[in-house]
């Protein structure tokens, strides 16, 4: 049971990070379906950077390595987001269409770069220094507190970064002027524009930073959840995680703090196929239990629309391009 919760939390953490990025851009009115692609590119670029850095120096400097990994993943993700924003905000093309193309581009590019720079299409490649870096645990807290250590302090630093980021994003969206502007751009760009808020600026920034965060989630997934092993064939799995992250944003009703428990529910569901049959003493097909996260998301979608509470339905202008002259 404890292992189940542990695994669920480590799964939850990177899905949540990806969802945080998506949430930011959705609150500004951009439904970025390119997130799965962004995740793949972030993972691929981040790992390539780490791998080649470790190969090029005798003893890798841990700090340099960390900065390089985080920067490259974030930048790769942010570029994807900015391309998305260019097409949807500046050129006003339909967001669904651009998002799907970005996912095709992202998965393709991730695979291509991985084969091109790592030159191994078969089997796993490892970059151990980076793996240790991401899984290093807090010394005292992680082993001296019994069950509390097992459940709460058994993870690498990104876990805590993610949680802090969720809180920061909540504060940003609800307590700051910029956050208010961002939300207004997502709810009603026409009104925001009339109030002198630059719709394009906010949407560009939200998509860029949001996708950057999703890119970080990609490398986080590889280095902690996948235990630091990289294989080009993993990209398909990462893409599927990306769609889960999109689902998670809806599940959390576009609120950062809901992501905390929402992602945990997803994590429990994801691993249910391993542990649930044993606990209940029944045999279940893992293919069917793996459906759970998607079914739950649909149920949430329906329940949310049943309640007809407006603030739970997501940003009102979600998915719509804004053109001043069409008001």
């Amino acid at each position, binding site marked *: 049971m404890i292992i189940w919760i542990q695994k669920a939390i480590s799964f939850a953490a990177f899905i949540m990070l990806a969802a945080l990025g998506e949430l930011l851009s959705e609150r500004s009115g951009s439904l970025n379906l390119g997130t799965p692609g962004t995740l793949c590119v972030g993972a691929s670029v981040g790992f390539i950077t780490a791998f080649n850095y470790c190969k090029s120096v005798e003893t890798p400097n841990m700090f340099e390595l960390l900065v390089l990994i985080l920067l490259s993943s974030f930048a790769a993700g942010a570029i994807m987001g900015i391309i998305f924003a260019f097409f949807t905000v500046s050129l006003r093309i339909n967001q669904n269409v651009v998002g799907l193309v970005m996912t095709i*581009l992202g998965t393709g590019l991730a695979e291509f770069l991985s084969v091109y720079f790592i030159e191994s299409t078969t089997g796993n490649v490892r970059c151990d220094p980076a793996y240790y870096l991401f899984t290093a645990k807090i010394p005292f807290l992680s082993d001296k507190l019994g069950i509390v250590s097992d459940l709460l302090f058994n993870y690498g630093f990104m876990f805590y970064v993610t949680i802090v980021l969720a809180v920061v994003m909540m504060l940003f969206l609800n307590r700051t002027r910029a956050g208010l502007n961002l939300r207004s751009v997502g709810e009603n760009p026409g009104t925001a524009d009339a109030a002198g808020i630059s719709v394009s600026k906010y949407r560009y920034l939200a998509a860029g930073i949001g996708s950057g965060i999703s890119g970080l989630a990609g490398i986080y997934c590889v280095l902690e959840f996948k235990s630091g092993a990289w294989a080009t064939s993993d990209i398909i799995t990462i893409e599927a995680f990306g769609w889960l992250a999109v689902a998670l944003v809806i599940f959390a009703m576009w609120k950062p703090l809901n992501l905390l428990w929402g992602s945990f529910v997803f994590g429990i569901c994801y691993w249910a196929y391993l542990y649930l049959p044993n606990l209940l003493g029944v045999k279940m097909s893992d293919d069917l239990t793996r459906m759970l996260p998607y079914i739950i998301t649909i149920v949430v979608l329906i329940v949310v629309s049943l309640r007809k509470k407006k603030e739970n339905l997501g940003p009102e202008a979600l998915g719509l391009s804004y053109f001043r002259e069409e008001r």
Partner: protein
Amino acid sequence: MSKTKEVKAKEPLFHIVARDVMHPGASFGIRVAAFVVALLLSALFVWVTVKVDLITFLKTMFRGAFGMDKVFEAEGFENAWTALLSSYMWATLKAAAKLLIIAVALGPAFKMRFWNVGAEGQVIIGAMAAAFVMYHYSTMPGPLLLLVMLVVSILAGGIWGLIPAFFKTKLNTNETLFTLMMNYIAMKIADYFYNLWRGAKSALGMINQTSRAGWLRSLWSGKDAAWFRNEDLWFMIIVLVFTVLMFFYLKSTKQGYEIAVVGESHNTARYAGISVTKVMLRTMAISGAICGICGFLLVSSQSHTINSAMAGGFGFTAIIVAWLSKFNSFTMIGTSVLIVALQNGSMLMANTYSDRGFSPSAADVIVAIMLLMVIGCEFFIKYRVMFKHSAKEAKA
């Protein structure tokens, strides 16, 4: 000497104006230009990564897409027909037909502004239903079995499309996300049956390999002509029939008109006495049903088996095809051939230059570059960019 002081407002470098309807020739020209730019960009990408020059790139792409040389060793080249069957050209046409029928299915839903991104799942569930009948009732007489498979596929696809539509009409649930999730549920169902039927074997293989029950080719006898016995050909013909039917359904029937009105504005539709709920449910049932038929065709005439990847991402690509073609089924023919041609051309590039690190995934990159350029050029068709000086001229 009074000088009129000119007040200078800070003018932006350019501003954007919506166009009236553009001349069809001009918009076609813009699209062609976008296509050329995309090819050049792809060539640049290829040159930077594997140092292949433009001409070789174009030649290889063309050969991989439309080349008439043989892809695999068929049983001797008896005539032009068998030569065609084993060519790159045929592979492209075959895949394009698959993409086309899904795009055709999506057409009416998108025209209604219903974002059905669930085609992938609707195809898989249709295929799944057909395979289920094929697996469990293989003793039924051939034509009857195929008929039952067809009906079950239509029902399965239709229901898969109806579920999100039902919640959209009743509760206004977001259909994009709903249909997206339905894809994954369909895939997991397919995985479940795949593993169930596979049993201890390493792969499922073709269903009814020996009896060929439920295979389209079980319908004809050995006496029929070679071309007549070709399952791919029938697949293409059926797809083309649907393409033509869908064109006229949308253009010349009352139901097609209702779809257009609902797509423009729900309120207008209500005012005109059109039941939005009814139109939405009906259209999504049709859209899902055609996806289901695609699934049936895939199982009965192409793969003869199931797996969760059998739609091959075409359910998503078809969305882009339908959108690019402005829901016009005839335009979709060209668009789907073009996209598949790019994909197959890039695949040949990948096979030829794999030693230089050019992997098959580059096909996705090249297709994505093309799609971005082509959808990006829509902007220049819809809007006009006015620069400072040209704006002044326009005023004067």
